[in-house]
């Protein structure tokens, strides 16, 4: 059974013991990501470009509510730069001493604001489909970076005989091949500060790298500690093996 974004929100499931239904998987492109592998780290320049793509393209429909501006220092920004980025946004705060709410510019402790006040508003503005928050999107999809990249670059002409329902778009990577999201990226949709040519593939890679960081900001710390732990354990195993051999040498076994 194909599950469309549009109908999925309405599918109030009657659950039986066997609700599993195979959804037709789309075509996923396999890429090498700088954060892959034991020693993989995020590409800071790409993260910064990806932030730009998120802010100028994705953010009009998708939130990033779990990411605080203060954490953008991970991308290689200084705290002053982070303050500037945060100050571009306005936040309602309060109540003040008179009991009034007021607006103030964003600060590093704020989180990226979501574009819609609630899910209903998001659905109403997008033909019934709620654009998901992107904070965890890379971890929340099978195929992770490859999947999100494939969606962003998967807009194609529908093959002959394939009818795309109204409000949908053909996408080679999306399960069922019909996605509610219109093609978000087009050539030169952003102008990169570092002069990198803004091709669709480049922007997709950059924003996926950025979203990968957003989903797993502690990945580098994790791998760094992991390496030390593994080295420690290998040495420990060597020592314990020596002890084991020595202790058991006394046993006739």
């Amino acid at each position, binding site marked *: 059974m194909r599950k469309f974004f549009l109908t999925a929100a309405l599918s109030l499931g009657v*659950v039986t013991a066997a609700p599993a239904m195979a959804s037709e998987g789309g075509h996923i492109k396999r890429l090498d990501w700088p954060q892959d592998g034991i020693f993989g780290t995020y590409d800071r320049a790409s993260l910064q470009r990806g932030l730009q793509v998120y802010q100028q393209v994705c953010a009009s429909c998708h939130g990033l509510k779990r990411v605080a501006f203060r954490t953008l220092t991970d991308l290689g920004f200084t705290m002053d730069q982070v303050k500037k980025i945060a100050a571009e946004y306005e936040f309602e705060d309060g109540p003040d001493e008179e009991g009034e709410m007021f607006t103030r510019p964003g600060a590093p402790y704020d989180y990226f604001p979501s574009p819609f006040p609630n899910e209903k508003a998001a659905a109403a503005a997008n033909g019934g489909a709620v654009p998901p928050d992107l904070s965890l999107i890379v*971890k929340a999809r099978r195929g992770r970076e490859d999947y999100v990249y494939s969606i962003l670059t998967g807009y194609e002409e529908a093959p002959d005989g394939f009818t795309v329902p109204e409000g949908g778009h053909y996408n080679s990577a999306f399960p069922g091949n019909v996605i509610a999201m219109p093609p978000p990226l087009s050539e030169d949709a952003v102008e990169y500060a570092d002069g990198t040519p803004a091709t669709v593939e480049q922007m997709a890679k950059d924003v996926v790298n950025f979203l990968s960081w957003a989903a797993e900001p502690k990945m580098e710390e994790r791998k760094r500690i992991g390496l030390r732990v593994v080295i420690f354990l290998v040495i420990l195993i060597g020592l314990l093996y020596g002890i084991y051999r020595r202790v058991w040498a006394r046993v006739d076994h």
Partner: protein
Amino acid sequence: MAFQTNSKIVKWIDRRLPIFSMMHHELYEYQVPKNLNWWYTFGSLAGIILMLQIITGVVLVMHYTPNTELAFDSVEKIMRDVNYGWLMRYMHANGASMFFIAVYIHIFRGLYYGSYKQPRELIWMIGLVILLLMMATAFMGYVLPWGQMSFWGATVITNLFSAFPVIGEALVTWLWGGFTVGNPTLNRFFSLHYLLPFVILGAVVVHLWALHTSGSNNPAGVEIKGKKDWIPFQPYYTAKDMLGFAVFALVFSIFIFYSPDFFGEPDNYIPANPLKTPPHIVPEWYFLPFYAILRAVPDKLGGVLLMFGAILVLFVIPWLDTSKVRSARFRPVYKWWFWVLVFDCLVLGYVGSQPPEGALILIGRLATAYYFLHFLVIMPLVGWFEKPLPVPASIHDAVLADKKAKESADA
């Protein structure tokens, strides 16, 4: 040799609370067969993992909020803002899988060497109680992050109880604390998820008490008869188990630090949404064989009963196994059936992970049938008809025979 000390303080305490005498007894006087192989380290390993689960769990609770509105966010706060919170959570989530791996190996080891047989029936049965408690605990723990799979897994599994006639619907409402899986459900699961590990710990103490009453079984399956058959736990098995634990810690670390979501479902990084059913609801891998048994029966009640039966049947195998010989090492026919059972469980696990379509339905049914036939029919019959190999006179003899075989193989 009885416990001796020159310390006045230790003497004073030991006179009133003989904890030092007891430790001395269990470590130095308690007789452990000297031929235990590496498969025997998984028991103490499971105990260590239980402690790790309790420690990481207690730390996680310091930051977790059991409320449907806040649970998912609080887990993400742990991942992002709590110092080493990601480490605690990844240890705890992967630790659950490690716990089941260790315990499943421990159980199959018991099956292979006949550790459930007289006089160790109660050790085996208490172990099964621990398994049931672990399953309940793991299931409820998986619900706590309140992701899509948490919510829908909880919905599917609790709905199973509606299969019971007459009381089914009322029972499910009672379990939920409402008319759907909701905040009361999450709260009680949290409460029980915190309670049950300590119940498991208690059951482990009883398991060990029974074990130290009958003593460990061993690969030869013969009892300790003389001085040459046994060694004290300390330093021999402490050294062996420590090495085993370090190797385990390495494997565990590779998952935690390099593939922390290996056992997880991507869907559980989507906050629970009661209005949107995931296309493919799967339980955690350690439940998959049971899930396959559940789905093998077209009738819901039958499926539920068979699934519970899959564990209950294990309680009676000390009486279903009619062989006088414990260890499969000396049972040329049963040995093969054991490996068929292992394969059968792997098949069931695979079937449980897949949508029930096409040939998999039939394979699932055959595998389920075999699972029960293995215990109810094959075990008693093989025990009667099999001609076992000669059993060694003592553990020491078994060790010498192994040594000889090894030397001739090397030469």
